């Protein structure tokens, strides 16, 4: 057993309102540069819908992910190593810009500059690729909220598949359609096919937290990763000629902050935390024969962080105590393995994705409500989950490689939770038969409710900080990271020998710490000191924080720092 830690995410799809805030904030943070105009590390798709890039789930066309060869061993669906090298000169299966969309802006200047005339000036769309006038025909979410579904709904690869396999047709007439949103980022897979496809070996998985990154210096632009990733979450920067992908906001994660998409999520539906997993078991788990067994195999790779044997093995691998502790408190572990409600997206791609989804009950509930039923009554709901084959089959194709029973079980749990809690909030005696009907007890169901419905910030995000001592070579990690949040701990990085002693605190870390402090404290931001200096980026202009002006006696720590340290600081 080789225990490794993996940062994971769970999204509770019932809460997604499709507002795209996550996409926009992510784009502002990471891809608002030339060359990646068309790139959305985080995108939100309406399902049924074609997704972004168009029909990326059609692996018969794109050949992403893994498959089993005749001997039952894993091989890249797009071909083995030799075949890949022969295809190097023109990547045969790479999506083109038109599969994403041609990014554009508007010629806003004419609105101001246009000469006086009878007509209102118009800001024409201009392509960001050619700079010429363009006609907007597609975008990252053109079919948002089922726009155009009557014409294009059948192009959804999942709809196609379910239709092929089921007797009755998925109805896509507008008024009968079910709908939900699917936010997607890179899955930071345990068995990433992007990495396996990269001829240069530039894509790597971080040992410490499992985040999958592209080494920008080693990438040579061979573009095989774009083919390799079945989720199409690797993008080509057409200006730099390098591949780029979601970074899981690693600079934020390293200091204990949630990713930008999680932090800004309006529905507060994202959970972040650690998994412990057995790295030696991954390949075997990804190679099980029946795709419908992949879910269970993937669950078995995840280890119980409370198991003493696991803890001992983790320690042996050098995983620190606070990380083990965080793994035990991990909300993503609870949702996947304790409550068993989170499912992986497309396990049949065999990449072992680590962003999990709690499937939405809302398509079922909405349909019931539209038909005039009481959508909260457990009997009605249970009956409907079984009767409404289409949404359930669709969800099964997304999350369990078509295993309808597995999805049904999860939906039943969600329905049961709804019914159980309704009884409680109406002041009735808790009806213990409801949790029992889905194999849970009342207390567990209540905990699950707390995590899923109340979803407090500190319970949604359990992110252990990176260990500075591991990163002694890392320039950006030069400072002490013993900073536990809250205004009382403002003495971050102040050293006993005054400002200039010790190592300089790198700007990135300092800024992130100050940001965290500002977001979690009640006092005026910037009231804390940063190595006896002040970080003007985070100063909100109120008053003159200590450290704004140089100390008179640089050998003495600032008065407030001394006081805070006396009060039981770091």
């Amino acid at each position, binding site marked *: 057993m080789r225990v490794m830690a993996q940062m994971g995410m769970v999204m509770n799809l019932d809460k997604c309102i499709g507002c795209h805030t996550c996409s926009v904030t992510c784009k502002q943070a990471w891809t608002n540069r030339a060359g990646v105009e068309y790139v959305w590390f985080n995108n939100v798709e309406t399902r049924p819908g074609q997704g972004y890039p168009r029909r990326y789930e059609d692996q018969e066309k794109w050949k992403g992910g893994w498959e089993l060869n005749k001997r039952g061993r894993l091989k890249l669906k797009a071909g083995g190593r030799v075949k890949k090298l022969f295809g190097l000169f023109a990547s045969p299966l790479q999506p083109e810009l038109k599969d994403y969309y041609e990014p554009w802006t508007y010629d806003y200047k004419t609105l101001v500059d246009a000469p006086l005339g009878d007509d209102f000036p118009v800001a024409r769309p201009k392509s960001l690729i*050619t700079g010429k006038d363009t006609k907007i025909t597609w975008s990252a979410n053109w079919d948002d909220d089922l726009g155009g579904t009557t014409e294009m709904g059948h192009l959804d690869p999942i709809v196609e598949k379910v239709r092929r396999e089921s007797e009755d047709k998925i109805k896509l007439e507008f008024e009968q359609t079910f709908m939900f949103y699917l936010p997607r980022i890179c899955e930071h897979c345990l068995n990433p096919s992007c990495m396996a496809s990269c001829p240069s070996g530039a894509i790597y998985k971080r040992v410490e937290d499992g985040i999958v990154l592209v080494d920008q210096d080693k990438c040579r632009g061979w573009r095989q990763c774009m083919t390799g990733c079945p989720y199409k979450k690797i993008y080509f920067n057409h200006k*730099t000629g390098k591949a780029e992908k979601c970074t899981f906001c690693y600079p934020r994660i390293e200091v204990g902050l949630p990713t930008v998409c999680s932090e800004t999520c309006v529905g507060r539906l994202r959970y972040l935390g650690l998994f412990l997993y057995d790295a030696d078991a991954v390949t075997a788990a990804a190679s099980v024969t029946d795709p419908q067994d992949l879910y269970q195999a993937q669950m078995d790779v995840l280890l119980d962080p409370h198991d003493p044997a696991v803890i001992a093995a983790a320690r042996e691998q050098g995983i620190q105590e606070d990380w083990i502790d965080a793994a035990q408190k991990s909300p993503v572990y609870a949702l996947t393995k304790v409550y068993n409600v989170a499912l992986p997206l497309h396990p049949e791609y065999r990449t072992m994705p680590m962003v999990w989804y709690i499937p939405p009950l809302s398509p079922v509930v909405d349909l019931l409500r539209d038909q005039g039923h009481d959508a909260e009554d457990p009997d009605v709901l249970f009956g409907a989950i079984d009767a409404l084959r289409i949404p359930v089959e669709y969800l099964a194709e997304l999350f369990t490689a078509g295993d309808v029973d597995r999805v049904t079980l999860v939906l039943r749990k969600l329905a049961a939770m709804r019914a159980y809690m309704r009884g409680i909030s109406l002041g009735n005696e808790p009806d213990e038969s409801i949790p029992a009907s889905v194999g849970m007890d009342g207390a567990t169901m209540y905990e699950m409710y707390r995590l899923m419905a109340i979803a407090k910030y500190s319970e949604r995000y359990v992110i252990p900080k*990176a260990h500075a001592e591991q990163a002694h070579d890392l320039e950006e990690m030069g400072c002490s990271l013993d900073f536990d949040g809250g205004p009382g701990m403002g003495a971050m990085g102040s050293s006993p020998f005054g400002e200039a002693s010790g190592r300089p605190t790198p700007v990135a870390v300092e800024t992130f710490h100050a940001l965290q402090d500002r977001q979690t404290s009640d006092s005026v931001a910037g009231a804390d000191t940063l190595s006896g200096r002040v970080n003007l980026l985070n100063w909100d202009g109120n008053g003159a924080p200590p450290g704004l002006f140089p100390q008179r006696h640089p050998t003495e720590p600032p008065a407030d720092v001394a006081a805070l340290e006396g009060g039981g600081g770091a």
Partner: protein
Amino acid sequence: MNILLWGVLPYVMFVVLVGGLIWRYRYDQFGWTTRSSQLYESRLLRIGSPIFHFGLLAVIAGHFFGLVIPKSWTEAVGMSEGLYHFNALLVGSIAGVGTLGGIIILIYRRRKTGPVFMATTNNDKLMYVVLVAAIIFGLWTTVASVFSNTHGITYRDTVSPWFRSLFILQPDIAAMAAAPLAFHMHTLVGMALFTIWPFTRLVHAFTAPLHYLFRPYIVYRSRDKGASVPARSGWSEVGTRDRDTRKR
């Protein structure tokens, strides 16, 4: 003059090539890329690029046979002069024409596809001129070798001995000087190509990912390893120049 061309220039070229490669490898890893334009246009690229690249690989193999393997060796294994030349001409012209055809498709595509043309830098344009010139002169030599054969002088008696003599640091200048004009031109342009090589996008050829055949599929890397960011050289801005900045 001959000493300068065939005794000095090759070494200058060699120093620039190796020095340039080392320098760029150390200071411009980030700029070291194919800078593929497949995202913009894929149809023509999928035809032109493999023809060009595979043609080029055959051309390189041909050069190896022609330049490195002495005449005496092929004769020793019983290959007659005529047979050798027939082979060389056949394979060489197929490879050469393929390479030329490939690059013509690629250049046509580069000129005609708006976004691809806009992503073409001056550096690229210069590189294309030299590259195409090298290929055309190369084809000319292939043809010329047939006719020069009639005079009893082949490049295997002139260019090849000179090429091999370069490596033992005693350049056989006289041999090279005796070669026909086509060979002189091809060699000069070829040297120019290798001289600019490290400074163009052609560098990607030197990191052809053959180690892919042997590395494990999954790459783990510790956060502290490789995290020391090397200082940028200031050798070029990131990627191609922005259209907006170019206009300004």
